[in-house]
Every structure is written in structure tokens, then in C-alpha cells.
């Protein structure tokens, strides 16, 4: 029962090798790439320019950037949706009674004893799976 | 051009009829479907008498009952509803309508559950088959071509024998793959024609290909090789439908499991789709490749004939015997086609008709006997002639028809094929090859006579526990009609052979050069 992060003792190091391999490839590619010297920013307030860029007021920005107004509006929607979704998921029903789980039909599932749920959380009748 | 011609009427009647039959109660679905199917028979019979086509549909001949409607614009290509008949498709259309009606009548006895679905599907199949034989736009043709599979799948799967599910899915997947392969081949040709072609109109494509020099490279493949590849792919695809050795194994399973009327349609009409397509596509559009590879193609034909017949010889199940012999019979068509002679083409086409009738007759007769005995195994029945004299009489007649008895349609067809193939300048060592192919007529006699001796004659006995009596009239009536047709066509092949010749002769008009041999 993990209720809080602990130092993991069952770490799967073998999988980790994939990450190392990825790093090796990426590192190789990056270090062999030819990149010129940084151009650096033009003079002016970076923060203000960021603000202008966010609202598509590019003509007022000191440092050039693309407009991000659409992204800005959309990110608002994203946060909205995330909030809604998170609340929906997190909310605890007052009523702890079990709602019929629609995806599991009323008939026994074949071939998978462990499917469905424990007796107290699901209505599934997992007896006698036929194949 | 008139839009509502007789072909449209045929399609409409069968489709609407199918719908009506689906909704009809089981009790009279069979009668209703039969009644509906009489309309196509009448219409197609009228069409036969009013037939005014001339020449080959794909090579600029005059089409009968032609109509064209724009359908879909797909990228650069224009798809159209384009139908019409020539001397090749008219007899096949007639075969379809007649055989469907007879098959429907022969269903009355064996089909006793889910009848409205059965008869509805049969009519759907008829509609698709009519489409296959009349469509002249490749894509529309393909729609009908594939649409045939769907009713067939259900007809075998629902009403078939013990292994019906296996047979149905095998038939389904096998022929579907074949279609896809063939499709790639044809599309490669269309793309090879490049800008000169902006439709899928088969006549246009065929004429562009035969004009020569219109092909250009596709994806780096040079025109000569392109046509060889296209030919190979299309041949492989159609060969499954025919079927040609070694892609025939779906057929016996499908036949054995299918209920009798479905076997009748399968052997009688569906197999002809394959040879019809071979004739229309491979041998019309890519004649030069076919000629260059005649040796290989004829080898497949001869192999199918002999091998199919040998397999038939080893079978115990009457239906299986007829099924394998269908492979053999269709092999003759291949040999006839590849001969590139007037009688070769004509005989091959005539064989499609005649085999359609005769194999339909054979299957129906076996079905009639099965209806009474509930077995088809050679060892289980003997002396059935004692109890069902008329059915057995027709069986004997049908069997001799199958063996190629003169004055029955089969002899005319096979003789013409042999005549055409013998004189072929395309087939290497044509006389010898023809002679080998002809040996099929001996083997076919062997297994049919053997089967008849064992089942029909001798002392009466039956392994299954059924009381055998004379077959009901509505079982025998279709047999009589078919037998009559077989004899009429055998005595007077010209009834359809005239128009067939008229349509196939243009195929030989121009000599084409430059076909690449596979090796």
C-alpha cells in the first residue's frame, strides 16, 4: 500500500537502459551538430515583449516573436477543461452505493478471472468463465 | 442517352425485390422471390431478342442497352455508371437471370428456416451478378464484383452444412484478397496510361492499351514490365475466382457446405465471373502479354483440367465430385482463351454458358436426391433409380452432358475450345497440348460413371434413415428446364454462339507486339 512516495526498492533498472540509450543517441546527434553562435536579443524589455507577443501586439514589441493570442485563448480553455475534468474525477460521491458499471455486461466474462473487480467494488459476477 | 433502360430495370427489380422479400413473412418469401425473379427472366429474354449490339464492348463495338451517368469524381479520375451489353455479356446475363429463378424454385424444399432472409439474399446476389456482367466502368464493375461476396457469405454461412462457417470465411477472405491483388494490377495499368486516361471506363482503357505505346513508366517500372506485372497480378486475382490450380481450394469447401441452390449459383454463375473478367481484362487489354506467356497460362489451364479431374476421381461426396469437376471444366475455358483463335475465344465463352447450365443442373440433381436421402456420400446410397426414376434419368442426362455428349451444350463448347486450341499459333506445340487437355474428357467419364454406378444403380439401399419417394414436381421442374436448355444449346449453339463470335472476333483483329514473357 503506497500512500506516499518512498524510496523505491523495486526499481526496474533494465528498463532504464532504454533511457540511457536515448541519451546516448541524442547526445551524439546534438554534439555533432553544427550550430553557429547565438544571435542574442535585441535591446528592449524581454518581459514586455513576451506580454505583447501573447496578445498579438507584435508591432509594439521590442524583440520579435510570433503571436500567441490563439494559443493563449486556447490554453484558457484547456485549463478550464482540466479543472472541470479533475473536479469531476476527484469528487467523492455522497452516496457510496455502487453504480452499475456499464462497460461490464451482466454476463460472465470469459477467460479472465482477474478482470472486473473485487466483490465489494463491482457488480460483476465473475464466476465460471467459459471460453 | 436513355437512363432507364432494361439493365436499370433489372437492377431495380432485383434490388427492390430483395428488400420486399426481406420484409416478407417466411411462409411466402420463396414464392414471392420466385415471382419477382421471373421479371428479370422476362426482361432479359426480351433483351436477348431485341439485342442489337455488334462487336466487342471494350473495343469500340456497338453496345446494346447502353447507358451512362456520371457518378464520382475521384481526383483526376471520373467514375461513371456505365452499363451496356455485347455478345459476350448478353448470354451471361441471360444465364444469370434464368439460373437464379431456377435456383429459387429449387430452394423451396431444402430451405426451411429464415426463408425471407435467404430469398432476399439470393435476389441481392442476382442484382450484383447482373451488375458484374453489364458494368463497363471499372469501379462500378468492382462494386458489383465484390458485392457478390456479401450475400454469398451469408448464404453459405447461415444455410450451409456442418462446416459452413469455415467454408464461408475461406471463400470470403480468399476471393477478397484476390480482388485486392487484381485491383493493384489494374490500377498500375491505369496509372501507366497517365494523362491519356482520366476515367475508369473500361472501353476507353482497353482501347488505349491496345492502341499500343500509351503506357508510360510507373514508379520506375518500364511499360513492358509494367504490363507484365499488371497482367500477372490480374491473372492471379481472377484465377482465384475461376478457380485455377493451385488457388482453387476454397471451391470444394464452399460447394460442399453451401445449400444446393447456392451451389448452383456458385458453380453456375460465380465461377464465370472469373473467366469473364479474364477475358475482359487480361485477354482483351493485355493481349500481347497473354500471347507472350501463353505457355505458362495454358499450363495452368491444362493442369486445372487434369488435376481437377483427378481430384474428382478421388471423392466420395457427390457434390465434391461436381465441385472438383468444375475446376476441370473451367480449365477448358482457360485453354480456350489463351489459344487466341476465334473458336478458342468463342468456345471458351460458350463453355461459360454451357458449364453454367450443366453444373447448375448437376448440383440441382444432386440436391434433389439429397432432399430425399439426406446424404450425398457415394457409399451411402445405391439403386436410387428404383425410387426416383425421373430425377435419376435427369441425373444421367446431366452427367452425360458433363461428359460432353454431342448435342448437349457441353460438347459444343468443349469441341470448339479444342478446335480453337488445336489450331492456335500462340500455344507452343498446340496439338500436343490440346491433346493432353482433352484427356479430361476421359477422366470425367470415369468418375461420373463410377459415381452413377454406385449411387443410382444396383440394388436399392440407403444408409440414412429416410423414406425415399419421388421428388416433388417443383424440385424436378427446374431440372427439366435446364436439361432442355442444355440440349437446345447443344443442337443449336448458334443461338448464343453467333453473338459471342461477333463479340470475340474483334479481339483478334489487331496483332499486338511487345509482350514480355515471364521467362
Amino acid at each position, binding site marked *: 500500500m503506497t500512500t506516499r512516495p518512498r524510496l523505491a526498492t523495486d526499481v526496474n533498472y533494465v528498463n532504464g537502459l532504454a533511457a540511457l540509450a536515448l541519451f546516448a543517441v541524442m547526445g551524439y546527434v546534438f554534439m555533432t551538430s553544427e550550430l553557429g553562435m547565438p544571435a542574442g536579443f535585441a535591446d528592449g524589455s524581454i518581459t514586455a515583449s513576451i506580454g505583447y507577443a501573447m496578445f498579438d501586439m507584435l508591432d509594439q514589441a521590442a524583440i520579435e516573436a510570433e503571436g500567441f*493570442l490563439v*494559443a493563449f485563448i486556447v490554453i484558457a480553455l484547456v485549463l*478550464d*477543461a482540466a479543472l*472541470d475534468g479533475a473536479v469531476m474525477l476527484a469528487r467523492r460521491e455522497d452516496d457510496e452505493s455502487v453504480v452499475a458499471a456499464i462497460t461490464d455486461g451482466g*454476463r*460472465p466474462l470469459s477467460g479472465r478471472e482477474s478482470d472486473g473487480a473485487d466483490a465489494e467494488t463491482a457488480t460483476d459476477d465473475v464466476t465460471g468463465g467459459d*471460453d | 442517352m436513355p437512363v432507364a433502360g432494361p439493365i436499370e430495370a433489372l437492377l431495380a427489380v432485383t434490388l427492390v425485390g430483395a428488400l420486399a422479400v426481406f420484409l416478407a413473412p417466411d411462409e411466402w418469401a420463396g414464392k414471392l422471390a420466385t415471382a419477382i425473379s421471373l421479371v428479370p427472366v422476362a426482361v432479359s429474354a426480351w433483351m436477348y431478342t431485341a439485342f442489337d449490339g455488334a462487336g466487342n464492348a471494350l473495343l469500340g463495338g456497338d453496345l446494346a442497352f447502353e447507358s451512362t451517368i456520371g457518378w464520382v469524381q475521384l481526383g483526376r479520375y471520373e467514375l461513371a455508371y456505365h452499363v451496356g451489353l455485347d455478345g459476350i455479356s448478353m448470354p451471361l446475363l441471360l444465364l444469370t437471370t434464368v439460373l437464379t429463378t431456377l435456383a429459387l424454385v429449387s430452394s423451396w424444399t431444402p430451405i426451411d428456416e429464415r426463408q425471407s432472409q435467404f430469398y432476399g439474399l439470393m435476389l441481392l446476389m442476382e442484382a450484383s451478378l447482373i451488375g458484374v456482367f453489364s458494368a463497363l466502368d471499372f469501379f462500378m464493375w468492382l462494386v458489383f464484383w465484390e458485392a457478390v461476396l456479401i450475400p454469398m457469405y451469408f448464404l453459405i454461412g447461415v444455410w450451409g452444412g456442418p462446416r459452413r462457417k469455415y467454408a464461408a470465411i475461406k471463400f470470403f477472405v480468399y476471393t477478397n484478397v484476390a480482388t485486392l491483388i487484381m485491383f493493384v494490377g489494374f490500377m498500375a495499368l491505369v496509372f501507366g496510361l497517365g494523362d491519356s486516361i482520366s476515367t475508369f471506363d473500361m472501353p476507353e482503357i482497353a482501347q488505349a492499351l491496345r492502341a499500343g505505346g500509351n503506357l508510360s513508366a510507373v*514508379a520506375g517500372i518500364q511499360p513492358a514490365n509494367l504490363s507484365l506485372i499488371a497482367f500477372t497480378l490480374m491473372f492471379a486475382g481472377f484465377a482465384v475466382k475461376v478457380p485455377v490450380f493451385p488457388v482453387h481450394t476454397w471451391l470444394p469447401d464452399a460447394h460442399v457446405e453451401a445449400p444446393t441452390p447456392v451451389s448452383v449459383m456458385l458453380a453456375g454463375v460465380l465461377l464465370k465471373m472469373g473467366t469473364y473478367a479474364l477475358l475482359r481484362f487480361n485477354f482483351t487489354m493485355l493481349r500481347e502479354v497473354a500471347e507472350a506467356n501463353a505457355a505458362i497460362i495454358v499450363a495452368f489451364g491444362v493442369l486445372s483440367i487434369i488435376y481437377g479431374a483427378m481430384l474428382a476421381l478421388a471423392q466420395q461426396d457427390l457434390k465434391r465430385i461436381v465441385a472438383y469437376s468444375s475446376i476441370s471444366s473451367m480449365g477448358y475455358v482457360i485453354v480456350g482463351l489463351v489459344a487466341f483463335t476465334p473458336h478458342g475465344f468463342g468456345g471458351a465463352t460458350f463453355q461459360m454458358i454451357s458449364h453454367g447450365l450443366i453444373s447448375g443442373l448437376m448440383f440441382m440433381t444432386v440436391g434433389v436426391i439429397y432432399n430425399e436421402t439426406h446424404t450425398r456420400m457415394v457409399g451411402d446410397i445405391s439403386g436410387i433409380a428404383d425410387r426416383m426414376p425421373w430425377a435419376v434419368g435427369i441425373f444421367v442426362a446431366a452427367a452425360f452432358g458433363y461428359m460432353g455428349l454431342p448435342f448437349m451444350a457441353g460438347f459444343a463448347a468443349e469441341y470448339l475450345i479444342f478446335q480453337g486450341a488445336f489450331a492456335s499459333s500462340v500455344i507452343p506445340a498446340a496439338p500436343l497440348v490440346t491433346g493432353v487437355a482433352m484427356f479430361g474428357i476421359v477422366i470425367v467419364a470415369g468418375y461420373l460413371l463410377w459415381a452413377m454406378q454406385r449411387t443410382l444403380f444396383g440394388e436399392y439401399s440407403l444408409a440414412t434413415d429416410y423414406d425415399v419417394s419421388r421428388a416433388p414436381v417443383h424440385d424436378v421442374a427446374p431440372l427439366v428446364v435446364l436439361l432442355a436448355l442444355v440440349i437446345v444449346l447443344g443442337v443449336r449453339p448458334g443461338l448464343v454462339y453467333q453473338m459471342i463470335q461477333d463479340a470475340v472476333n474483334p479481339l483478334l483483329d489487331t496483332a499486338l507486339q511487345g509482350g514480355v514473357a515471364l521467362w
Partner: protein
Amino acid sequence: MVVDIAGFQVADWVALVPSLILGVTAMLLFIVDSIEPRPGTSSNTVLAGLSTLGALGAFLVAGYFLVLGVGQPRGTGAVDLFNGQLVVDGMSLFFVVIVGSVTALVTLASYDYLEGQEYQAEYYGLVIMAATGMSLMASANSLATIFVSLELSSLPSYALVAFLKKNRGSVEGGLKYLLVGALSSSVLVYGISLVYAASGSLQLNAVADALAGGSSVPVGILGVGIIMVLLGFAFKTASVPFHFWAPEAYEGAPAPVSAFLSSASKAAGFVVAFRVFLTAFPEVGGLAGGDPMVDWVTAVTVLAVVTMTVGNFAAATQEKVKRMLAYSSVGHAGYALIGLAALNAPDQGFVLGASMMHLLVYGFMNTGAFLFIALTEHWGIGRTFQDFNGLSTQAPLACAAMTVFLFSLAGLPIGGGFISKLYLLAATAQAGSWLLGAALIVNSALSLFYYSRVVKAMWIEDPSADLEVDSYPSSLYAAVVIAAFVTFALLPAFGLLSPSAFDAASVLFG
């Protein structure tokens, strides 16, 4: 800025109306949700009706715009909005049509499906929000916009998959979807950052311009970026190797959500992929001639082959219909990828158009198939193939519809799937991509096998004694039947939409 739509001089943002309709609907649903007196008291009818209307509106307006020529060469030409952050052209409208129609079907079907469930307002809100994101993806023309709109479609989807909070399958599906999604979005955003590193821009046309220079482009960095971006989209389209979420999410999710994700979300993923790769990277991929800098065409070819193979082969041996459909959905992603793979063809618009048409038809047939699953879940008859045995005796209409879906998915001429699949095959032939063609044939055959297993169960097998269907939920039925009708009608009426697809596709190739 003013554009001419059907003779009216209107502001250019009008072209965005379909997406706006969806966005506004989503907001309305949130409002309904927040003003309801107690959670769950809002009328199901109002919610479902509102969302269906919104989706339908988006669909109709987008379709109407397509007819009018908005965003297309014969009409206004592509409408650039917000300095190229968004673009409304034939392709975007085409995909909004797909998204809108699928969403409408899904919300219609959900009316019955959600009966008695809590959080209905949230459900519809999230669906429409995700749909908004998808419609924006269709129009997004900058990597930034693409990323955020992609997330707008993803985040609600995670929640939707886990919507059945008490159902372990649903939650597990949601979790896997979330985790794989999170991983994928970080890969995507990392890829975007590398593309930015190579080009200095996020706006697609600017990226293309920057990369067209050639010599000074750090090809290695760009290559890593492109591959990562590709994989980011692979997640959205449920393509190998980022498809792992799909079988579980589709299986666990409520069936309408599965329908939604496997049809609309996939289509949206494809439109983004099409747009990014064909607007920003054509020269990099060598489409303009010459050697490719980063051969993403071949990469996509490999992914397409592997995707269709993995999807179909795994689907072939499933026991549960829904999971089979999930895998088949992966397989179809592989088919649609042909649009980006067989680009060696002389007529590239043909290839891409075929892919787009396939996604359109797929939208209807696959949605229909999953909604049929929703129906069976509603009936509670079980999920395995055997559970469907003899279902046609109880529900012939629904089974007939399902047959249409499955056979159309398999590419038989009973629905538009026939033509679209053959067109994809033709595209491979034209491009000479024999590998793709062969893979398509093999997989198509295999798919016919497993699709017909369902058909066989429904029509051929005998029903078990206890099979009983006691209700015929009208809206679910309506959705299934409409989907079936459209699937079927797309066979003869394929030509109504295909010119739009081919035109829109051709435009992308200049």
C-alpha cells in the same frame, strides 16, 4: 480583413465559425453545469440536445462552407487568421466536418447511454471541449497552436475515458491513456522545441521557409525534432509505436467515448500530421525533389506498415469485440498513414485525398461500430464474440447496421469504406510502394476475417438460451442507424465529398 463568403463580405474570422460554435457550446454546457442547483439535476435531454445541436451546427456550417468554397481555391482561398496561427482551408473544414459529425453521433448516442449516470453535464462539456480542440487542430497552423489545441482535445479525453469512476476498466484505461499521453506530449513538445531550435519559428510556413535554405540547417537536431513530432502525432492517431494506450483506453472507456476517440480524435491527429509535415517539412522530406534531409516519408512508410500489421494481427485473435475494434482502429491508423507515406506518387493530392476520404468514411463506420458496442453494453449482453451469438434474432436492425459498419471497415462494397480503401491501395500502386500495397492487402484480408467473426456471431451462430434484449433505446438506435445509413450512402454518394478532399489535398502540394 474581409473575405467573400457566398457573396457576403464578412470578417475573416467568420471562416472559423464551426470551431466557434463548438467552443460556445462547450461554454454553455459549463454554464448549465455550474448553475444547476445540485450536481446531476440537469436534464439529460437538455445537455444531450445542446451538445448534439452544437456539434451538428459545426458539422453543417463546415459542410456548407466547403460547398461555398470557403478556404478553397475556387472560393476565398486559404484564410489566414491571427498572423498565420490559424488557417481555414479546405482541409480544415473537411476535418471539422468529420469531427462535427462524429461528435453529433456520439452525443446523440450518449443520451441513452448515460441514463442514470452522474456528472452528465461534465461529460457533455468535456466531449464538446475536446471536439473544440480537435476542430482547432484542423485549423492550427503554428506548432504552438497545434500543441495547445492538441492538449485541449487530449486532457478532456483522459477524463472522459475514466468517466466511469467506479469501473476498474474505465479507470485503468484512463490512467494508461493519461500516462502514455503525458509521455507523448512531452516527446511532442520536446520535438517542437528542437524544430524551433533548427528553424527559429513555430509558425509552419515560417518553419518551411527557414528550412528551405538548406545548408545552415542543423539537420541532426531537426531530424530528432521531426521524429519526435511524428511520434507525438502517432500518439494522437494511435499509431505504432505510440499506440499502446489505444486498446486499453478504447476497451475501458464508455463506448461512446471510444467511438469519439477512435474516430474524431484520430482524424484530428491526422489533420495535424498532414498539415505539419506537408506545410512545414515538404522540402526536408524531399517532396520538392532532391534528396531528403530527413527522410520522414520513409519513416512514415515504416510506421504505416508496422501500424497496420500490429493493429490487424492483434485484432485477429481477440476475444472481446470492443477490444478487437480498438485494435482495428490502430490498423486503420496505419491505412490512413499511407496518405503521408506513398508520396512518391506523381499525383500526391490523390494519395492524400484518398487518406482524407478514408478518415471521413472511417469516422462514420467506426463510430457506428463503437456505438453498436454501446448498445450492447446498454443491453448488458457481454463483450465477447460468443456473447453476440444470435443477436440478430433479437435486434435485426442494429445487427444489420453493425454488419454494414464491419463490412465497410473491411472494405466491402456495402459502404464508403470500399472505395476509400481501394483508393488507398491505388495510391500505393501509383507510388510504386509495393511494400505498403502488399501490407495493405494482407491486412485487409486479415481484417475481413476478424470483422466477419462478429458478423458470424450475430447472424450465423445460434443464440444462447438466455440472450434477451429488453429495450430499444431510441437515441442510441438513431445514432447507429444514421451512421449506418451514411456509411452506406457514402458508397453511391462518395462523390459528394471526395472532390473537396482531393482539392484540399492538392492545395497542400502547391
